[in-house]
């Protein structure tokens, strides 16, 4: 059932591409139908898979001479992330209901991207995983370059090149692993059991991990994220933050840690207190958390605040991965889900609800617009999303970050202390953005004051309300009853930790 998510998305993309131009309405509804069907498949697969371990969906030889299989499978981690992708896809389409320019092409690229993302989460053959991973690069480029805003061509090219460089590193690492293992199989499960030499894992692990972590927004390779997010159209920034960054984190977990568990072993010597790759990457994750939060605090562009907050929140995911204990890893996966939903919501509010109406994202200009009164729905949606983003209890972010922090405490207590500072700054920048964008109530200067009264900003439309409701309720549901996801995530994490990887 889960495999249909991939096929549906690609078929939808193909149909959209073949659709005659000028039929924007048809294109929208078609895209929405495809995405909703995909979500149903994802939910169906999730429910079916409750209480099960890893299940193989399809396994047919693809390139027999090289031992490459078309191997789709799902464990708890995959199921949760496929569910996230389904939600993000539907929400993204709801928030791009106002795309009028080359609508069918927009949704063709959009669905192709979604199909690639589903594929990555379901592949258990590294080769297949890589293929899907790269399929996702090209649509991202076009989505941003054609439909984006601020410095879109720069942002799009930067994102495409960062992704491609990251995937080149991954490819080198995978080629090396394939030839070193000599197992004549590219299945992740077989490779994890191939017994790669520890010395090999020691240098191959960082290569693959960094390759994926570039897309996860790890400091100092995060610079594509803010520019890319800001340049992207609303739906694309929702997808970028919501699922594409998760591709990177998922690759770090599934391929990096899964294939090269000994790459995290201590080196046997230490440099500046760093004794293993685990320490190095945890340090980078912590820098990302603090740095992203501090930079978000200083932004004058509303969307940049959210862009940098993504860097900060993804730092928690990477920190969770580096804890290497069950609670920390489960927290990391939950944080992927949670950040996917919350960041999607924040980007939707900034990009669709506010920017598409006010045509500015500068706090200095928004301050005088009295948005809290003129767009109360947007304001209150942002209050809720902001609370979720800060990690208030009751929302998914709280449970996820709490688990990561507990896991970090078990591993190294000072990690928790440092990450805690990041959370405090997180409250500050969210509060600042909320206050300046919606509740500033600064009186407009005479030049700013429109002569003919304030222009009508337009009512909030039903797709926007549905989208906000969908994402908010998801975050609340997971926050109030986290077992709904944790019951699925935990066995998979346990298996991953116990099985020397897979």
């Amino acid at each position, binding site marked *: 059932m889960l495999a249909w998510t991939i096929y549906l998305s690609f078929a939808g993309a193909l149909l959209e591409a073949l659709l005659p131009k000028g039929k924007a309405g048809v294109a929208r509804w078609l895209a929405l139908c495809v995405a909703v069907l995909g979500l149903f498949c994802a939910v169906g697969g999730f429910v079916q898979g409750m209480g099960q371990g890893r299940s193989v969906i399809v396994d047919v030889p*693809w*390139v*027999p*001479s*090289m031992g490459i299989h078309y191997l789709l499978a799902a464990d708890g981690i995959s199921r949760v992330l496929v569910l996230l992708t389904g939600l993000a896809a539907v929400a993204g389409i709801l928030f791009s209901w106002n795309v009028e320019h080359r609508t069918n*092409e927009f949704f063709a690229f959009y669905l192709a991207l979604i199909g690639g993302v589903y594929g990555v989460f379901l592949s258990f053959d590294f080769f297949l995983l*890589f*293929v899907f991973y*790269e*399929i996702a*690069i*090209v649509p991202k*480029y*076009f989505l941003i*370059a*054609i439909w984006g805003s601020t410095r879109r*061509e720069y942002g799009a*090219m930067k994102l*495409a*090149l960062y992704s*491609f*460089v990251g*995937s*080149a590193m991954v*490819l*080198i690492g995978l*080629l*090396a692993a*394939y*030839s070193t293992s000599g197992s004549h199989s590219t299945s992740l499960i077989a490779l994890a059991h191939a017994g790669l030499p520890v010395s090999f894992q020691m240098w191959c692990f960082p290569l693959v991990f960094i390759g994926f972590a570039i897309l996860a927004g790890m400091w100092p390779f995060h610079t594509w994220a803010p520019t890319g997010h800001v340049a992207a159209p609303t739906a694309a920034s929702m997808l970028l933050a919501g699922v594409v960054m998760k591709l990177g984190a998922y690759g770090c977990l599934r391929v990096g840690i899964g294939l090269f568990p000994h790459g995290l072993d201590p080196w046997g010597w230490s440099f500046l207190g760093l004794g293993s790759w685990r320490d190095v990457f945890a340090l980078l994750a912590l820098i990302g958390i603090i740095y992203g939060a501090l930079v978000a605090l200083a932004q004058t562009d509303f969307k940049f605040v959210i862009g940098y907050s993504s860097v900060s929140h993804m730092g928690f995911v990477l920190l969770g991965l580096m804890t290497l204990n069950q609670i920390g890893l489960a927290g990391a996966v939950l944080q992927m889900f949670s950040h996917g939903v919350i960041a999607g919501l924040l980007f939707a509010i900034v990009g669709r609800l506010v920017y598409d109406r006010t045509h500015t994202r500068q706090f200095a200009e928004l301050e005088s617009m009295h948005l809290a009164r003129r767009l109360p729905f947007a304001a209150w949606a942002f209050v809720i999303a902001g609370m979720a983003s800060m990690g208030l209890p009751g929302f998914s972010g709280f449970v996820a970050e709490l688990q990561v922090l507990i896991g970090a405490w078990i591993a190294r207590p000072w990690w928790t202390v440092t990450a805690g500072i990041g959370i405090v700054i997180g409250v500050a920048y969210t509060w600042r953005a909320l206050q300046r964008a919606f509740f500033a109530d600064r009186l407009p200067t005479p030049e700013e004051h429109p002569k003919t009264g304030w222009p009508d900003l337009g009512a909030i439309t039903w797709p926007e309300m549905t989208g906000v409701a969908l994402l908010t309720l998801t975050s609340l549901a997971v926050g109030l009853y986290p077992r709904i996801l944790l019951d699925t995530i935990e066995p998979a994490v346990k298996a991953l930790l116990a099985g020397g990887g897979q």
Partner: protein
Amino acid sequence: MNYADLFRITLPETVLEIAALFALIVDLGLVRKAALQMRVAVAALVGVIGCGVAIWSLSMQPTIGLSYGAGSKLILLGVGGYITAAQIGILLLTGVTLLLFTGSVFTRHAGEYVAVVLMSAAGGLLIAAAQDLLVIFIGLELLSLGLYILTAFAKSSAKSAESAMKYYLFGGTSAAFLLFGFSYLYGITGSTNLHEILLQLHQGELYQATPLLNVAVVLIIAGLGFKVAAVPFHLWAPDTYEGAPAPAAAFIASVSKVASFALLIGIATTAVHVFDAPGPSPTEQGAHPGFGGPWMVLLVTLATASMVLGNLAALAQISVRRLLAYSAIAHAGYMLIAVAFFSYSPLSSNAILYYILTYGLTTIGAFGVISVVERATGSDRFDAFLGLHKRNPLLAGVLLVLFLSLAGIPPLVGFWAKFNLFAAVLNLSAGVVPFTLVALAVAMSAVSLYYYLQVLKRAYVMPAVDETPIKAHPVTLVVLVTIAAAVVVLGCVPALLQNWIAGF
């Protein structure tokens, strides 16, 4: 050697020559009075049929190669294995370039054009099979002379004449180098047969004894490096690609490359057969062929320089043809890695062949798109591609597929070719040097995405200046769409072509 055997083994070449003459007769005789469009179509059709018959005639070849005489075991012209696969590839790609010629108007001499193409292709077939220095040289000259003429075929274009002159001067010099190198080899060993030469070098340990051999290898690499456009023998490529008429440029970029790499595979195969006689494990044996020394060092240098310079120089281009020329240099660099670390296992030759055949097909398609755009806008600058998705969505789609394949984005065939090639190198030769080279190649292909996207950005992202639709000749359009479809299908089912190549 008797002439019946010679005839049987050179049947495909003979068929091509007959078809060439037939194209001349038909064009100058039967349809002399017809409209140019008609004459071009008829001549191209004759050529395509000639290629088809030649492919069929490959199956009539004897199963063992042609030897020098009754008592001799040495082979003059080989058959089977990678040779047949390469020959079929050459013929197919020739047919495709002839089909692209159908829509062209750059010359009134349709029959002559087709005849020269077919004769060049015959040269290509010859060098793919040749095992003797003299045959190699004759084949190369037959191929090259045709290419010089084809480059100059747009008589009304000064660029075409200029680039042909450059190509000819470079080509003549490099042919002289090659022949000079061959003469040294003959002087050292007293034979013109590749196998015999290598055997002598191996048994007599001559390759360690005489510095003359190093000179010979350097000269030969210079000559062959010119054919595959490897840095530093690449200078002709950008000019020729820019000046030649599009179908001729497509022929140079594909068929000539396939033939040249088939020759390199032939030399390397003979070398590993002599120096690395089957041992217990081909992996260990193949890692350091005895012939290694200068040959391998030179190839590694060429490969590195080509990858780096080709990709970096491509970044600065504003003409799509020159961009393709530099990207061709870079692609040659990738393949040279596999030639340098050639191994006894057939995987090596299969991977190179897979790469060059798919690359040839893709690049023909790219030139096809360029020719259509050029005809409509009069330029091959990046700006000529502005708004292509509006002016001809199908053509823009083809360009998207082909360029992404060249950049190595899965699931297109270019990605599999790269993966196949690099995996073969790493699996067959362990060591730091091959790994570093492969890592460099992968890194460099990340660079390549930038310049391919520059063209696609013009086609899809930037606003059109002129929105009048571009019309393509129906045959051209069908061929281009078929090529794009093949790139996608072969990419989704990579085993198809792999098994086909391995089946010979």
